[in-house]
């Protein structure tokens, strides 16, 4: 009887797969297209595979700061016009930066697809970074940090956790970075960053919405295929940004005797950049340069890191993080389900036992913070009035010990699977979300874009044993950072 009930509930819901087309342009730019005519809108997005983990010590926060600067304009778009073009067309735009990638998007009425392509191709080809923009955006970013971290209760948690959870990996700093580092940045930093990371083969153009496939491909070709790569792209950008005399001086050797041609100075000043580069550098390489990425395998922690943080808060809290594997690791799915077991829904173990039954916490959450390289799983618990943090810690530990010692029941596993199915089916409900997900799967999973439809199978194959195993492997005291957050006046 019981089995019968179970199997009738477990009948899988039919879901509509996300269909898409993907291909590479000759310059290495990856393109993903998803066609959906239900609403006359289109999401035009460009994901660059660069985040705070590509920064150097002494220049932390640079990727995010750079994202702000990328709205300042280009050779053909004046300062403060990016948003005017988009809003004037009835669209909206923004961008965000994580540890691993930088993501730009425009949501437009579908008859403005071309505008989105133009804006994004301009950014990729020849974005303009000027002093006035640098000065203004530096202050804006500082205000962003004050608003999001300094003036926000517990707002410092990410920085405090990450700097302890990693010893060598650049994940030890967070995307907002250090304000002193931003102040220290030099002109050449901007040039190098743009040259190294804002190149076609390091980007994915992902478009979703009310598009005509044939036209879309034609326009993408027009705006993006003409963007050179490799040495040729560097020359192209130098030609546009350097003063003619500086340009000539820099490329004196390569230009050689051509410099003596009568027409050279006329061409230098009057030809389009395309024509000029084609004429004077006909054999220059277009081979993409290698994009450097940190090759750091940081092992799990080998002893517990315990500390106290005094913040402008009222309620003491525990914030702890276990080091967990990278996104593209087989254990990732079991880790994610373990977090759900602890904290998704009112019947989850943290909520039912720590919050409701024992009343040790006002709230307790566990959530994975997976990253392209090794990530963390975070637990955040606010102490109930009059509960000391070590009592709260004991209650949290008890729940984790239970998962380590006892297999979860079939019914609990079924519950997790039902929750996953619902989450999976309801995600990807907007064009912007679909465009981002497609780009993300392609970028993080070595081109496995179709995971957008297939990933649910990986969750469904996780067993109760897997969950117990990852609890014993990663959710152990020697592999965690535990912070006691206390009000400043307790110091």
């Amino acid at each position, binding site marked *: 009887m019981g089995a019968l009930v179970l199997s009738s*509930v477990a009948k899988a*819901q*039919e879901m509509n797969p996300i269909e898409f087309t993907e291909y590479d342009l000759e310059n290495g730019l990856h393109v993903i297209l998803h066609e959906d005519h*239900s*609403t*006359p809108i289109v999401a035009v997005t460009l994901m660059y595979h660069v985040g705070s983990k590509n920064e150097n010590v002494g220049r932390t926060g640079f990727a995010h700061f750079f994202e702000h600067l990328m709205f300042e304009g280009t050779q053909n778009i004046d300062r*403060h016009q990016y*948003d005017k*073009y988009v*809003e*004037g*067309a*009835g*669209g909206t735009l923004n961008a965000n930066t994580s540890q691993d990638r930088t993501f730009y998007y425009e949501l437009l*009425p*579908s008859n*403005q697809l*071309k*505008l989105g392509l*133009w804006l994004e191709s301009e950014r990729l080809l020849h974005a303009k970074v000027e002093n006035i923009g640098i000065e*203004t*955006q530096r202050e*804006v970013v*500082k*205000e962003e940090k*004050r608003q999001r971290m300094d*003036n926000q*209760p517990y707002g410092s948690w990410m920085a405090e956790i990450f700097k302890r959870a990693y010893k060598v990996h650049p994940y030890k700093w967070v995307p907002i970075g250090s304000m002193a580092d931003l102040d220290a940045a030099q002109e050449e930093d901007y040039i190098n960053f743009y040259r190294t990371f804002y190149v076609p083969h390091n980007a994915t153009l992902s478009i979703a919405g009310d598009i005509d496939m044939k036209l879309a491909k034609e326009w993408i070709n*027009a*705006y993006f295929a*003409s963007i050179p790569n490799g040495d040729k792209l560097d020359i192209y950008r130098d030609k546009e940004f350097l003063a003619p005399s500086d340009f000539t001086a820099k490329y004196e050797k390569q230009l050689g005797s051509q410099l003596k041609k009568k027409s050279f100075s006329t061409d230098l000043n009057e030809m389009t950049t*395309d024509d000029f580069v084609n004429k004077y550098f006909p054999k220059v390489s277009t081979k993409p340069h290698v994009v450097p990425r940190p090759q750091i395998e940081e092992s799990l922690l080998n002893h517990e890191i315990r500390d106290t943080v005094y913040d*402008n808060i*009222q*309620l003491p809290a525990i914030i702890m993080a276990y080091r967990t594997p990278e996104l593209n690791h087989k254990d990732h799915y079991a880790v994610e389900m373990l977090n759900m077991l602890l904290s998704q829904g009112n*019947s*989850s173990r943290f909520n*039912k036992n720590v919050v409701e039954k024992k*009343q040790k916490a*006002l709230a307790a959450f566990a959530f994975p913070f997976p990253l392209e390289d090794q990530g963390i799983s975070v637990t955040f618990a606010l102490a*109930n*009035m*009059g509960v000391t943090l070590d*009592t*709260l810690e004991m209650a949290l530990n008890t729940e984790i010990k239970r998962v380590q010692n006892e297999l979860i029941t079939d019914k609990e596993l*079924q*519950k997790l699977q*039902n*929750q*996953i199915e*619902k989450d999976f*089916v*309801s995600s990807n*409900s*907007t*064009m912007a979300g679909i465009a981002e997900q497609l780009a993300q799967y392609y970028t993080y999973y070595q081109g496995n874009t179709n995971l957008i439809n297939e990933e649910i199978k990986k969750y469904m194959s996780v067993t109760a044993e897997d969950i117990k195993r990852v609890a014993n492997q990663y959710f152990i005291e020697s592999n965690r950072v535990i912070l006691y957050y206390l*009000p400043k*006046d*307790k*110091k």
Partner: protein
Amino acid sequence: MKLRIIHLLLIAFVSFQTLAQVDRTKAPEAQPNPGINIPKPEVFELENGLKVIVVEYHKQPIISYQLYVDHQPNLEGNKAGLNDLFGQLLGSGTEKLSKDQFDETVDFMGASFYPNSRGYFASALSKQAEPLIELMSQVTLSPSFPEEEFDRIKNQQISELSTIATDPSSMASNVAGVVNYGENHPYGEVVTEKSLENISVDDIKAHYETYFKPNFSYLVVVGDIQAEKAKELANKYFGQWEKGEEPKANYTEIPQTEGQHVYFVDKPGAVQSVIKITQAVDIKPGNPDEIKLKVFNAILGGGSFSARLMANLREDKAYTYGCYSSVRADEITGSFNAGGSFRNTVTDSAVTQIMYEINRIYNEPVTKEEISLVKSSMTGAFARSLENPQTVARFALNTIRYNLPDDYYATYLQKLEQVTIEDVLTAGKKYLNPENLNIIIVGNSKIAEKLNEFDVNHKITFKDAYGNDISPLKEVEDGVSVESILNKYLLKVFMVDDIEAAKAKAEKIGYIKMTSVTHIKQAGMDVTLTAKSFMAKPYLTASITKMKDNGSGQEYITSKEWFDGESGGTFVMMQGSTQLNEDEIAERSFNSFPISQMYYLSDENYQVELLGIETVNDKEYFKLKVNTKNSEDFTFEYYNVETGMLDITENFTTDPEGNPATTKIVKNEYQVYGKGKYTLMFASTYDLFMQGQAMKFENTEITISKKGNMDVFKGEF
């Protein structure tokens, strides 16, 4: 030959492709407008008056049910917070299902369920359409409101209240409610610990009985379901819900202010100020002027980077990460808000710039470019919002709730297109009043003074986190002085008729020992703290605190402190002992025996100032500020105007790193201690507030004598 031609053609074709390169110097033209289409939802009414709105949406196999009980906003009076508490408790079990069973059922379905004070939003895979609506009918028709869960949620809310003091936006909202609407208006009521304490589970049940009725409620069904099926389910599961009378609400008039007022809430240590410039605006949803005000607002400070506030305060001056404004239409009274978060040093400049922008758009016509940009952007936003099927449902709900014309949303974009520059100016003038704005700032009090200039009376009003005035002190009557206050107190403490007699009595006393005890019993601990303190002439002091764990019976010394007039030390559990340094010795070497008030006027180490009369918990107190020499720390002492006794002390200290700390002691029930010549009045119990905790101590023993054990002042207890 032919080959040659083909070859030439190929070249031509290739070069044609190169030539056909796009013109990057110009923005591309738009394609023809795609037009938008708003699906028409199915709307019907059950016999009990419940209105059901169904939006079919088959793209994903998901279904959602939203219940909205549309009663008028109700005054909560001395039970502010009742609506929220009700909302939280709504999902805590039904007559058939305990709270645990209910939670398990929701989660096992993979469903989401979010209750609120007006109903709930629930969603699941469409294969769960019937089990979910069955569960929702239980929530609606037979909620159980278990007492245990009520207690837990109420306590939780009380705990959470304390976080308001660290959340500048909540503080600003509290103040905005009070100053815009008055504290006797549903939008101005502020939840406090006291108001939560007043609520009982019976109030929650009564609220349900009064306000939860189908004849003024809406069930909104969105998702992968046929309208016919939804109708059948609604009838089956909500048809039994009994109708009732709709309660009528009464509101007080909102306060009319004259001139600009500045309200300041102190947030010690803040690195940014939250600025909220606000006023009540009488605009109802669906009023033809609403759309004009929306255009007005979008140009001033809507979400875009090119809106005036953002362009000026972020992109030009870099004062902030974001600066926005909003106009909210509401059935009772709407509101206007403008502001953001700004670093301390530019707070006053930011107010100046926001006010400049408000006045500019109020007085001068906007430009053609601005209005056309905003119209395009609003048109796009409207179209984008239709991507979400819940938008279509919301349009249908609003149309019925606010009695809008049937084609209100279908013709929305035409109405938007017709808004003129003149309309924007007229609407602004009709609804806004820039001279009477309330300027609310939550931030570091160091910057408060600079804000006086924005207030009509050149004097800002200080508010607490809940919007209460921090009342300015009343002036004392003629004849009252520091001396008269201290003397009255000393005569009472010594129980004599004149000050000379008090001195003579003090002369005889040489030694005082006090023992006080508190029990702390809270989740996770059960301990007894015993504090003993010793004092002797002229300023010898010592104390020892022990903690007994009543579970294990073990006892620990948590701290010790001693000073023999020349040297001394401290001991703290887990940290060990340290010798007093020079400064600490100097701080202790003031005459203070048997009570320090005897020396306030004669000893130059004390500086005492009479600040005025302050009202605390409905009682009037003379407030003295006491500084000691060479120290930044200070104490406020509150002497009861009626009895003359010292009832409250607040001690403000700063540690070497600049972190402030406050210790507050409230003394209760003075009584006589000691025997014969050696008698004094002391409080028999006191409440100690420090480090966010409150402890109630009882003085179990006080002995007053000529001599006593002097070893304690050497640290030997």
